[in-house]
């Protein structure tokens, strides 16, 4: 028996979800219409579907898209890997300063980018890494450490020490324990943090703006901000560009929805 209350609840949720997606429908519709059609009837379904504007947007965005791929994939993998080493050390190889160092790393979560921006720029400049892929990758690795170590260390701490002790007795080295026992067990946490890091790094704008505001090395959001200027009031190309830009994160999101939501939820409650 479905009560009236539940029906209303359900309807309300459906309405909210529809309204929630209106902004996205807006750019989807605009990306398929010619500008003259947009000028007469901006928010109705396109009379003729054309991919022209996606092609135009891709022409403008492809260098930036490729830059983002080159930057995001290594940065994500490296930052999670390096953080997992630290998390393993802090959570499973207890030593005197464990908690202090953990606190130090985690406090990095609250440092806003602006607080380091100016000296960081000059540091990277001195290292001749402005407008390079490796410069951006190193920055993303560094700024990803607090959150990655935080999430991974919390998970590693929940692994029963009996497993580690047993392996140790069997002659497994410290590295062996890390690689053969801890990491496989951490698969779901690793999945969560890899997904988050990928999304955050792909979505970055600030570091791209400071360090690679160029077509040669700028990430996708730099490209989008430029499209806004170059195609001012050309809404179909801008919309198509935005849709192209979100393809990777959208794919990751759709494939791993469960992990996304679970990741925030477990991060949140404890």
């Amino acid at each position, binding site marked *: 028996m479905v009560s009236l209350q539940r029906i209303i609840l359900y309807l309300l949720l459906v309405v909210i979800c529809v309204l929630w997606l209106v902004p996205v429908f807006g750019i989807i519709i605009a990306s398929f219409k010619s500008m003259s059609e947009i000028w007469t009837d901006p928010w109705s379904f396109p009379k003729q579907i054309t991919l022209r504007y996606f092609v135009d947007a891709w022409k403008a965005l492809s260098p930036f898209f490729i830059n983002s791929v080159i930057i995001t994939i290594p940065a994500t993998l490296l930052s999670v890997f390096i953080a997992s080493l630290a998390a393993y050390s802090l959570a499973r190889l207890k*030593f005197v300063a464990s908690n202090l160092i953990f606190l130090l790393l985690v406090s990095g979560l609250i440092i806003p980018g602006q607080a380091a921006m100016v*000296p960081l720029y000059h540091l990277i400049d001195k290292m001749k890494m402005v407008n390079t892929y490796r410069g951006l990758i190193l920055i993303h690795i560094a700024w990803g450490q607090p959150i990655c*170590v935080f999430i991974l260390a919390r998970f590693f701490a929940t692994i029963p020490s009996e497993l580690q002790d047993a392996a140790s007795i069997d002659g497994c080295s410290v590295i062996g324990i890390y690689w053969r026992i801890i990491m496989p067990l951490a698969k779901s946490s690793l999945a969560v943090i890899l997904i988050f890091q990928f999304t955050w790094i792909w979505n970055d*704008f600030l570091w791209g703006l400071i360090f690679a505001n160029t077509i040669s090395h700028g990430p996708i959001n730099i490209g989008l901000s430029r499209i806004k200027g170059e195609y001012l009031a050309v809404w179909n190309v801008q919309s198509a560009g935005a849709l192209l*830009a979100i393809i990777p994160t959208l794919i990751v999101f759709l494939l791993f*929805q469960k992990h*996304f939501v679970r990741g925030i939820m477990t991060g949140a409650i404890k």
Partner: protein
Amino acid sequence: MKMKKITPYLFLIPSLFFFGFFVLYPTISSVYVSFYKWDGISPITKFVGLTHYKELFFDDPYFLNALKNNIIWIVIFLIFPTSLGLFIAIMVNENIRGENVFKSIIYFPMTLSFIVVGLIWTWIYEPRLGILNSVLKTIGLDSLARPWLGSRQVVLYAVIIAASWPHAAFCMVVFLAGLRAIPVEVIEAAKIDGASAWQSFRHIILPLLRPALTIVIAITIIVSSKVFSIVYLMTMGGPARSSEVLALYMYLTSFLQYRKGYGCAIAVVIFLIVFSVAIPYVKRMTEKEAEL
């Protein structure tokens, strides 16, 4: 045996190196640089002590304007997207069919960059073609239609609403986690004792949501203090600085006006705001984690 003793440190070195070198060191340097007058090109020599800070608070209407805008941002963000997220979380919590679909749809904006969110909402706010004005005209509220991003009085609020879209999604997820952590028996017991829905909410659920509320409040204040990308894209702080926020002001000062010492002072102020909000929260978070 020696190997065993230093192994933990070996595992830590890469992470600490990156963090120390690219995060901590520049942050501390910012404080140092803020005491100097520096254009970023010549060597750092002109020590000015706290002059920049004095200038910021007593002699800089643009700084105070940006600070005001961030405060408005904080206040609105604490009221609007958070309660929206809570409201939706309560509904989704009711174990309805297709829950995962609803969750995914609501969560979706969080996967977008603020540049994309900015582009999407700039289109919504377009004076002649955007849906907001079109809908207003259709329902006869013509007089309310206006150039949302071009009007000094409303632009800041327009951008805040746009940014509320992903933020509400975040709040929903956190609150949902908090709600799910409340044992069902507690709610049941309240119902048996005759508590109304509102009473249950006020006296049982809300207090038990404290951890989730702490996170939401802390993060809301923090993101409102350092907001940058969406303003950069949608308005660049305009028209006439009416939507300019601290982070944008700092960027313009440092990189376009070459007042890097002054810019660092602004950055330090941003950091202090964020720091003072976050410290009690980080403390509480790590107290629980103290025994890893």
